[in-house]
């Protein structure tokens, strides 16, 4: 596939960024991603913004960052928008690149979770007739998924705690991460219960942050910027909306999305062919579940991979060397941050968290209640 990542940038993720409004954050990452690509705004053919009206507290939130991402520059640029995770923004940017109409695409995302009420905003993702009036939100709905998955596959709270300990510790090596922590298994198990079986340290924080990616076609990639990172495969799929329609212990949409991405990228054995994984662990159980659905092990064996250290930095398949979403969760930005981390790993620029010989990486993003939809990307040098 002739789509390359030419430049990346992200802010540090924080609990509260009061020194920048969200448009100013977008300007920062836009200019940094352009610099990283060795390009100027003049060389950007079109722009995709990623934003959400409820998180920004306004309508047509994409318009609020147009000036910041260069849309008003010169005589104005072609801009379109995605309301969803940043991986879907990159997917759209890749499609625009593949259309042949654009040789370069800038994709930007932002979110300032600190400015809204995350429970009320995530409650609003449910239908207004049957689910929303019950007060369900991202944490309580994910708790239902966690319990169903854990019951079906005999996964314990301790198994999940291994994910929190690994990823929060890994975040200490990532200067962009929000919550680097040296936790013990007992710290996680004894942390404040939120919605059973999810406890405070099983859950991601709500972070502020922004990110940007510059995409280009092969012609531009071969003459511009630094070492390009190629998008080799991409897959995306959705599941049913009502939680009671789904078997929450399974994620068939992720299975389909990953198989599609593997097929495109010519991946026959994901465990052997992929060197590093960055997945959307908004809650600890998700890392185990997503690894299984993406075919890195059999259903229910994600806990074994984690306990055996296979997914640790020095394991055969490092997962979330960045510290993952459980350490930095700027909603919408988080999936883009997974792609950016993969790009940095492949470029060999991940510094203290660099995975050795990282040539092929997998980035994963989710959207909707209990990850109703998934986007999987395979990237390589």
């Amino acid at each position, binding site marked *: 596939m002739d789509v390359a990542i030419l430049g990346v940038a992200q802010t540090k993720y924080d609990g509260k960024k*009061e020194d920048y409004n969200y448009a100013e954050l977008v300007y920062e990452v836009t200019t940094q991603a352009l610099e990283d690509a060795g390009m100027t705004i003049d060389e950007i053919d079109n722009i995709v913004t990623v934003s959400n009206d409820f998180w920004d507290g306004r309508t047509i939130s994409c318009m609020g960052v147009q000036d910041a991402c260069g849309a008003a520059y010169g005589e104005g640029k072609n801009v379109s928008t995605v309301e969803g995770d940043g991986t879907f923004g990159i997917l759209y940017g890749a499609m625009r690149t593949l259309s042949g109409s654009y040789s370069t695409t800038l994709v930007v995302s932002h979110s300032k979770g600190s400015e809204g009420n995350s429970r009320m905003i995530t409650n609003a993702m449910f239908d207004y*007739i049957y689910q929303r009036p019950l007060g369900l*939100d991202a944490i309580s709905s994910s708790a*239902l998924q966690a319990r169903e998955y854990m019951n079906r596959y005999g996964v314990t709270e301790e198994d999940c705690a291994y994910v929190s300990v690994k990823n929060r510790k890994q975040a200490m090596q990532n200067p962009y991460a929000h919550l680097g922590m040296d936790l013990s298994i007992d710290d996680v198990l004894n942390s404040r*219960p939120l*919605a059973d079986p999810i406890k405070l340290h099983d859950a991601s924080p709500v972070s502020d942050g922004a990110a940007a990616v510059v995409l280009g076609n092969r012609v531009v990639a071969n003459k511009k910027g630094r070492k390009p990172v190629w998008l080799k495969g991409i897959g995306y799929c959705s599941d049913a909306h009502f*939680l*009671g*329609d789904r078997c929450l212990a399974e994620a068939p949409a992720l299975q389909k999305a990953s198989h599609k991405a593997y097929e495109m990228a010519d991946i026959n054995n994901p465990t052997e062919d992929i060197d590093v994984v960055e997945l959307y662990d908004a809650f600890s159980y998700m890392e185990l579940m997503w690894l299984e659905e993406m075919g890195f092990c059999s259903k229910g064996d994600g806990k074994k991979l984690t306990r055996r250290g296979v997914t640790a930095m020095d394991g055969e398949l490092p997962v979330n060397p960045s510290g993952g979403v459980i350490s930095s969760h700027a909603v919408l930005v988080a999936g883009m941050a997974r792609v950016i981390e993969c790009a940095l790993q492949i470029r060999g620029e991940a510094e203290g968290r660099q995975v050795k010989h990282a040539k092929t990486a997998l980035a994963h993003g989710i959207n909707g209640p209990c990850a109703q939809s998934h986007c999987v990307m395979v990237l390589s040098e």
Partner: protein
Amino acid sequence: MARDQEEAIVYKGRIRMPYNWAVGETGSFFLNKIKDDCQIWATKCSECEKVLLPPRRNCPYCFFPRTNWIQLSGNGVLTNYTKVHYHEPALHPQDPPLIYGMIKLDGADTSLLHLLGEIDEENLHEGMRLEPVFKEERTGHIKDIKYFRPGTLFHKEGS
């Protein structure tokens, strides 16, 4: 001027936006049956025969345009639950602890999400039989079902 030394100004805001959300004919039938008769009805796809709850005007799975109504007993089995420890007054319909359950009503192929009540938490378990408790004052709303509570009787499907 050193801009990084400015005292940060943060506005407190609140968006209140009125809507008139149409439930539609299908949802209205379902909610009126709860309101008027304390009955729970589901839709059955005319093509794949899946019985869905919440009810659907058309089948999302085989994409067939028509579904038919069937009455359920209202009783069912708890398939999954979570106890919520935090309280968000603007969202939560009752004080903590709040327990959400997924209930597979007898005769339905999907589970209905609702609240659980009158439950001894020690005995809370998947597979327990539940029955709905309806509010006395009903308005045509999903919360006209106050919650589901343990029910001892086992009702045959479709009875």
